[in-house]
């Protein structure tokens, strides 16, 4: 294994075009955008389906159908239709993150103790208060695990952006492959994996912070 590319200081200067830090930033940009868009779309739908119980068949199957859409094909389709740019990549990545977020939001809402929801209604909470103050906090652990797996996947898959001329860590893979520089490909793979792990760690910390100890069992 040739790690020379990874450990070459020249590739780590923030000011050089195409340096690893720059690629990480652009990579994160795609990841974060896709996660935000995906969450904005999938979360309300998943919550709604879980809250009302209506359309649960859809939720379960849309999850699997979404997963079955090949990201590469979708990306190429979008580029062919829309031309180069961020949009086609974001569409492909968003489609990727929607299923786990949707299904986990749904599952989180479905598996929580209905008696507690009943108690909340019985105390005179309005539907929005029941959702925001009781159901949502209780569904958080399951929802977070869905979000984390979405994040893991999109970090790995955002490398395809480079295949259509964008930046991100995929550049190291695609360019390395094009110029037969395995050390660069390896650097790309390692940085992506490390990025995924670090991101997951951050999300795990965030989860610990936003999920009530009453649910996680981590009592102070």
């Amino acid at each position, binding site marked *: 294994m040739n790690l020379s590319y990874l450990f070459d200081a020249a590739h780590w200067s923030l000011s050089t075009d195409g340096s690893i830090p720059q690629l990480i930033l652009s990579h994160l940009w795609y990841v974060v955008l896709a996660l935000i868009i995906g969450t904005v779309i999938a979360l309300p739908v998943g919550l709604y389906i879980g809250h009302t119980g209506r359309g649960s068949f859809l939720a379960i199957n849309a999850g699997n159908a979404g997963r079955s859409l090949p990201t590469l094909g979708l990306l190429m389709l979008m580029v062919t239709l829309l031309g180069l740019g961020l949009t086609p990549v974001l569409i492909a990545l968003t489609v990727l993150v929607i299923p786990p977020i949707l299904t986990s939001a749904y599952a989180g809402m479905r598996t929580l103790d209905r008696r507690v929801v009943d108690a909340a209604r019985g105390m005179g909470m309005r539907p929005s208060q029941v959702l925001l103050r009781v159901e949502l906090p209780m569904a958080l652990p399951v929802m977070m695990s869905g979000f984390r797996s979405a994040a893991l996947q999109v970090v790995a898959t955002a490398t395809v952006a480079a295949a259509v001329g964008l930046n991100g860590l995929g*550049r190291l893979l695609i360019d390395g492959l094009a110029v037969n520089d395995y050390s660069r490909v390896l650097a790309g793979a390692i940085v992506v994996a490390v990025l995924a792990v670090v991101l997951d760690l951050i999300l795990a910390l965030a989860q610990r912070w936003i999920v009530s100890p009453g649910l996680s069992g981590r009592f102070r």
Partner: protein
Amino acid sequence: GANDDPLSNDAGAGSSTGTSTVTIGSANFAESELLGEIYAQALEAKQVQVKRQFNIGARELYLKALQDGSIDLLPEYNGALLSALAKGGAPEGVSSPDQVLTELKKVLPAGTAVLEQSAAEDKDTLTVTSETATKYNLKTIEDLKPVADKLTIGAGPEWQERYQGLKGLESLYGIKFKTFKPLDAGGPLTVNALVKGQIDVGNIFSTDSSIATNKFVVLDDPKNLYLAENIIPLIRTTANNPTVSGALNAVSAKLTTENLTTYLAKVQVDKQDTAAVAKAFLTENGLV
């Protein structure tokens, strides 16, 4: 000739060590695939067993595949192949088809050979839209020099490293572009980016029908940065025999830049099936 069971493919690739199947590869662009298909049908016409393994990727990848025996035969371009194989790129001063061929034969990897090269050529070019050409009054690559710092160039990622890419442009012509956008080697990304104005200058192959379709302007290369790029079959010697070389040399003899451009347009513009276009070429040239 279908490779339905992918695991048997491994055994098939071992063909190079004796059996009579020839595995033909191609790079991941339409012309390479068309040429591969033409080779395939020409061989099949001579009762040679053929296996198709097209669309492999960049040269760096398919050369590896050739060396490890995954494929036996490829349509290649003599200049590009030379720059890929020769250490430090193609020697300076070498540019005519014959010079290139001579140099190429010196650096071929062990166990591989080239057959006769054809007259058909498909060169790297620097191409701009007619608007850009008018705006900056561009006719040759040299004309880019005063304005290059305002322009973005798009090409395959490998251009960052190649002499016949950014390096040669800088050392031979003294041209340095504002930015380089890594796209694909003369492929749809580059064409599209050029049309949409996301790049100002693009690396497009000379036979590409998009040049005509989009009324692009191809800039002349007075200093011969780009080598001759004659189409030439690259083959593993174990797969070579008189039948095979005979058939392929006959194809090379009939290939010209013009007829290649015409047939390629049938694939690229008319979206005809590659196999059908290849068959038409062979029939019309009396090769089958």
